[in-house]
């Protein structure tokens, strides 16, 4: 995964980004082709596979009925965990992937931290008693840069495809009974219309770009994660990596991030809706 570049190559890439004409002909705001497929894991409540460049991510959503949190008895729970598989690189065997996994988990969890991203109230079954807990596991099968963006797109697609069985609650107090439906068609789907995706903008030389190739990442200094919602709102923002970004550039980057994010949401929603029209289950 370490790319070794000569000074001439670095200069070439940096100049390209600054002039909005990158090595592969893309502009600074262009993403490469994204491959997305949902419902790839029949064992889960929802799943998606997303491939962009050399990065491939598999997301599985599993739901279980648990007791509510004492401090938040009227909402359900969403737990996002990232996992870098050893098949992606020998560096990820054993504890090697811990640092990267923590980073990914934190950024992705932060993305969904705000209250208007996904309605956790919908996940509540019985107020003060039981709720749905969604475990979202993000598995990186290939790591080739731009991990956060790909993961967030796959995450949204997986949540979109998630079906939860309808629970029938009867009785009250001690005599309360919950019946989780066995029927695979007796299900309900989550509302993902506000789910954000992460757009990462890398600062390269005097300019910045989205969706960098591995060589471009090697030339970059700092990067900014922007969590963008379909309506153009920002759900989170974080500056990471080494390097300083001056405030004017930062505002420009965020503006571009939001614009690109909205466009991606549009395309993503279009494709997800198109998949809905294909054969069910």
């Amino acid at each position: 995964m370490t790319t070794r570049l000569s000074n001439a190559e670095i200069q070439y890439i940096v100049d390209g980004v600054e002039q909005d004409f990158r090595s592969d002909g893309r502009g600074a705001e262009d993403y490469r082709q994204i491959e997305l497929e949902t419902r790839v894991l029949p064992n889960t409540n929802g799943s998606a596979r997303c491939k962009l460049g050399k990065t491939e991510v598999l997301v599985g959503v599993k739901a279980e009925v648990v007791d509510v949190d004492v401090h938040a008895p009227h909402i359900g729970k969403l737990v996002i965990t990232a996992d870098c598989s050893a098949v992606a690189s020998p560096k990820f065997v054993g504890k090697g992937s811990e640092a990267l996994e923590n980073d990914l988990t934190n950024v992705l969890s932060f993305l969904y931290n705000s209250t208007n991203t996904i309605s956790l109230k919908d996940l509540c079954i019985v107020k003060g008693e039981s709720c749905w807990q969604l475990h979202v596991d993000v598995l990186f099968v290939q790591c080739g840069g731009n991990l956060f963006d790909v993961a967030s797109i796959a995450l949204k697609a997986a949540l979109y495809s998630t079906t939860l069985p309808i629970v029938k609650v009867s009785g009250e107090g001690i005599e309360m009974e919950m019946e989780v439906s066995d029927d695979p068609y007796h299900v309900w789907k989550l509302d993902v219309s506000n789910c954000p995706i992460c757009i990462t903008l890398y600062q390269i030389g005097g300019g910045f770009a989205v969706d960098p190739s591995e060589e471009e990442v090697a030339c970059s200094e700092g990067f900014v994660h922007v969590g963008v919602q379909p309506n153009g709102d920002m759900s989170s923002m974080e500056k990471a990596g080494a390097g300083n970004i001056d405030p004017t550039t930062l505002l420009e980057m965020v503006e571009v991030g939001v614009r690109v994010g909205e466009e991606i949401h549009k395309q993503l929603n279009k494709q997800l809706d198109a998949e809905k029209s294909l054969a069910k289950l």
Partner: protein
Amino acid sequence: MASEILSAEGLRCDGRRPQEMRKLKCELGISEGADGSALVEQGYTKVLVSVFGPHECANRNTRNHERAIISCSYNLASFGSAIRKKKMNSDKKSTEVGVMIQNTFEAAVMLEKFPKSQIDIYVQVLQGDGGERCVAINATTLALINAGIPMKDYVCACAATVYQDSVLLDINNLEESSRGPLFMLAVMPRTESIVQLQLDHRLHNDHLDKVVKETIQGCRDIQVLLDRQVKEWTVEAAAAYDIKPRV
């Protein structure tokens, strides 16, 4: 519970006959970053294997001057099993399966061709519905072939159980959790030599001969399918260089 395993008409819970194997789908070279990779699906069990190497030994102490060493890591994805399992870096079962796969391929790979080197095998079970170890071995065979690492023969594995005097081949999760014997065999089909054999629970001696024969047949059937896929992939890969290989 009893009639779920094998119905009165002789059908298993997923509609298969006792000696019927699950649908096998396999693909080579799906992970571009690895030297060799393969994805094998048998029924709902889906396993992805990446092979890196032969490369310089990471640890000078484990280096062997006469042959390559194999290091294997086996991992089940959190969403892979019916109940979600938290990721554990080194739980006993995963380590045990890793060592089992390592031993299996130490017998099959021509390690003497690469002294002082290391071959890494990484197994990721994406979805487990019974027979994960077997699918892992089948996928590793393909990944090693994809990496161009010379082997003495294919290594094909199949799991079986015995229920009411019938041998059930290629068992799924439900059949694995029944209280019958779990018999796993890894075989090099051409010479029919057994590379790995594992038996859990109790198997009556009278059934042993029958189980071994039928499981070997199951392994041979798997080899035919894997071989077909390897030939297809070879023709495709060679076409990129305008070569027409004789397969």
